[in-house]
Structure formats: structure tokens, C-alpha cells
């Protein structure tokens, strides 16, 4: 049996807290907005995930950040807002350790919060930052070849087409660290033994096409025992297919056992 209740954290943070029937001292999960999608998540992903984790004994807050869902407009530093939210969660439900993150911009925000706040013990990164680099090009080539005859036309087009202004993409829209900083930052998280689960989908193909990119981006810390990496090229960015969502919930639940 699980319980759900609305929770107002102040400072524009509003959400729904899902809790197991029995009080828990386990870390509290905070699921941040995936882009501009409200707290229930794409296709209710956060609702299903919160209830599945509560069944495992975790409390989970799905929350609207400023400018999304029911929250007031963005006014300042979202990281500071979430950290004050942690304070309030501590006062309201006694939480003192947190697993944070989510999909897309939620991964970007979670990364920054994990670096800024030592109460974070787990970081969920779904389609987070990656550096393109040489492996990305290898992956792109594999991707094109997998498309059969139409790939040749695409490749020829690339060489013959007049150069156009680059399109606005993840690199412009997302809040990503520089490559060198990302390596140092993952090293800091690993030194704190923060559990990290980084999952890339095929939907991130604009910047991630090959599994070797993860280690190439973040370097030696990726080999740490507290870092888990997966690459699901057959899955889209929003986990639209029901089996992809089920697989995701299973993978996160398995990873979450480390915090039990």
C-alpha cells in the first residue's frame, strides 16, 4: 500500500509525494521536469516510476520547477530553489539524502544539483550530456549504413550540399558543462560515491550514437563501481512504447536497490 499527497515546498516548488505505507529512512527520490513536461512526466512516466519505487520502499517527489506545470514563472537560480526544497523536505518528512534527476533537462539540472549539494547520493541521468567526438562520427556512419540505399543519397548530399547555418540543437538548448569540466565533475561525484545511472536512448542521436562515447566523454571515472551506463538505441527519447517504459522502470528499480 502506498500513499500520495500534494506537497508545497515553497519558492514555487509544487509536487506530489508518493510514499510507502511504512516510514522510511531511505533516500528520497526527486524527479525533475523533463523539459517543459509537467510533473506527471511524458506519458505518465513519473507517476508510474514513483509508484513502482514506493512499492520498493522509497518516497518519491515528482515536482514542477519554476516555469513548468503549475509552478510560477522562473525567476532565478533553479539549483538554489531545489536545494531549499531539500531543506523543506527534511523538515516535512525527515529526508536527509536524495536521489535526483530524470530525463533530458532534468538530467542537466540533477547534475548541477548533485555537484552543489552533498545530500545527493544518487543521480539519474536519462539522455544527459555527451561530447560528440570521433565515436559519435563512427556511430553516425553505422546509423547511415543501417538505413540501406537511402544512406548513400544522404551521404552524397552532405558532401555536395552548400553549407548552411547550423540548426539549433541540444548543444544550444541544454545546460551542459564543457567537456573538461564534465570529466572533473564526474570525478567529484565518484569521489563522494554518488551512485550514477546514465542511460542514453536512440532519441539522443543528435549527439550520442555510439556506446564508446560515454567513456570518451567522461574519462576514467566512468569505470567506477558507482557508475552504471546503458545505451538503448532502439528506444526513443520520451519512452513512448510501453515495453520501453516497462524496461526503464525495471532498470531504474534494479539500480535503486543500491540505495535500499
Amino acid at each position, binding site marked *: 500500500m502506498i500513499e*500520495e*499527497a*500534494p*506537497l*508545497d*515546498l*515553497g*519558492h*514555487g516548488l*509544487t509536487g*506530489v*509525494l508518493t510514499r510507502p505505507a511504512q516510514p522510511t529512512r531511505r533516500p528520497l527520490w526527486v524527479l525533475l521536469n523533463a*523539459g*517543459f*513536461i*509537467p*510533473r*506527471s*512526466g*511524458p*506519458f*505518465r512516466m513519473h*507517476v508510474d516510476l514513483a509508484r513502482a519505487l514506493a512499492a520498493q520502499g522509497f518516497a518519491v517527489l*515528482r515536482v514542477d520547477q519554476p*516555469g*513548468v*506545470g*503549475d509552478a*510560477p514563472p522562473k525567476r532565478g537560480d533553479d539549483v538554489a530553489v531545489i536545494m531549499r526544497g531539500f531543506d*523543506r523536505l527534511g523538515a*516535512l*518528512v525527515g529526508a536527509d539524502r536524495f536521489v535526483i534527476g530524470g530525463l533530458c533537462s532534468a538530467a542537466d539540472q540533477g547534475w548541477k544539483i548533485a555537484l552543489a549539494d552533498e545530500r545527493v547520493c544518487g543521480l539519474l541521468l536519462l539522455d544527459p550530456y555527451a561530447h560528440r567526438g570521433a565515436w559519435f562520427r563512427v556511430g553516425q556512419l553505422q*546509423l547511415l549504413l*543501417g*538505413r*540501406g540505399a537511402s544512406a548513400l543519397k544522404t551521404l552524397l548530399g552532405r558532401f555536395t550540399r552548400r553549407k548552411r547555418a547550423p540548426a539549433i540543437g541540444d548543444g544550444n538548448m541544454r545546460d551542459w558543462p564543457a567537456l573538461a569540466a564534465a570529466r572533473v565533475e564526474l570525478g567529484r561525484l565518484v569521489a563522494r560515491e554518488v551512485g550514477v545511472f546514465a542511460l542514453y536512448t*536512440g*532519441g539522443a*542521436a543528435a549527439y550520442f*550514437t555510439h556506446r564508446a562515447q560515454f567513456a570518451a566523454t567522461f574519462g576514467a571515472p566512468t569505470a567506477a563501481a558507482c557508475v552504471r551506463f546503458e545505451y538503448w*538505441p*532502439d528506444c*526513443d*527519447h*520520451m519512452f*513512448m*512504447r*510501453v*515495453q520501453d*517504459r516497462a524496461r526503464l522502470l525495471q532498470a531504474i528499480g534494479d539500480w535503486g536497490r543500491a540505495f535500499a
Partner: protein
Amino acid sequence: MTATIAPPAPERAGEALHEFAFAGAPDRRLFTVFRAARGPARAAFVLCPPFFHEQFLSYRLLSLVAARLAERGIASLRFDYYGSGDSWGDETAFTLDGVFADAGTALDELARRVPGVPLIAFGARAGAWPAARLAQRHRLPLWLWQPLTDGRAWLDELVAMDARERASRLRYPFIGTQPKPAEADRLLASYCPASLRAQIAAQSLDGLLAEARSADAALDLRVVDDERAAPLPQARQHVALPAAAAGWHARIDLRATFITPPVAACIDALAQAAPGEEAK
């Protein structure tokens, strides 16, 4: 039943207060967002949201609509149908009969919160159907935002959109040469078995409005719709929504939602139509 574990945040400058709560029977708890009017409420509306993926695509827009109307003295209660959004229930529990029942529960909750205040039924997209039913049963003014007039036509659109998404190389870059197979009982990721499809296909806004008219010949119907859409002949007022603000439901992604001045003018037109405006 309502449950809160923290007091509402103090009212913030320039924003009307809103409060989350669960409402309804213990075995069918609905997530609600009540937004108080700034000052005494002259009217209040219950907002029946769109279905399926359109629920999350429209969420911010409808939250901002409610916020703007609250500033103009109109309280609101938004809610999620059982088995959708933040409400309880597995998605397989989402049915059209449930939708109509939940709208009634939400109206009761709103009436409890603002006793004596004139009520309005408000529906967006497929939410027009339960809102029209509320208007008929309770003889309420009816506001519709981009209403779906024909269930079968909408179903056909969803089926076509589902096929496009499954074949999309933007969504599935590694798809190869074959689209992803269709998922049994699902449309665009949402659970939609044959029984629900049949119910949706049978929905006709004309029919629902005719029923509402038979209950109240003076049905006060206001419609905000795409400027390219044909006005509903039953509407007392048709407010033209700029095409740029009307296409949010056509793509499965979500961009930032803002209330631009033309959209604000549409919302203000509704506010001017609300009970109590004449007395001001």
C-alpha cells in the same frame, strides 16, 4: 476527501493562490488544483482537460489560462481523470464513463470550495464532451477551448499520428527500413483498447450540445478555437485563437508555453463573458 501534508504557500505577489488536493471517493481519488480568485470570486469554472498525450501537452497552457482568469475574479478547479495525470488509478482504468463521472466529482468539489458562486463548465479538446454533459445536467454556461467536434475524426487523426511516430526517424533514428510495430490496445503510447475507441468514435459534440440545448434553450456557449476552424453555430461567442497558438496538439513534443498578448486577449474575452462581469 482532501489530503495535504503541508500548508499552502503564502500568496505571492501577482499570483493568485492555488492548492493541490485529492478529491472524490477513497477508491477513486482525483488530483485537483484549485485556484482561488484574486479577491471575491464572481464565478468559478471546472476545467475538463484533454485526453491521452494531449493532457500533458496542454497542462501548462491550461494552468496559465486558469491563472489569468483568477486574476480577473474567476476561481477554478482543474483535475485529472482517474487513471490519468496525477490522479490515482492505472491507465487501464481510464474510460469514457469514468471521465463523465469524474467531471461530476470535480464540479461537486468546486461547489464545495466556492459555495454560492456561479459555476461554469469548461472543456478543452476532448474535455469538451464531459464539459457539455455537465452543462446539460446542471444548466451551466459552457466554455470550450479548441473543442473536438467529432470523436471518429479525432480517432482517425490519432491513428495516423501513431503510424507517423512509429515510422519517424527523428523519434527512432536507428529504426532501419521498417517502422516500429503498432502496439496492441495503444495509441500514441496511451492505453486505448477497442472498447474505448468505440466510445470515442461515438462522441459528437453536436449531439451533446443538442442535449444541452434541450435542457436549457438559452445555453450560454463560448468557444475559443483555431482562427481557421469553422465557428460552432450553437456558440453565442466565437473567440479566434491565433493559428500559431492552436497547433500544440499536433506534435508529440513540448516547447515552452507562454501566454502571448493575442492568447491573453482570448482569455480576457472569456473573462468578460463570465457571470458577474456586467455588475462590475
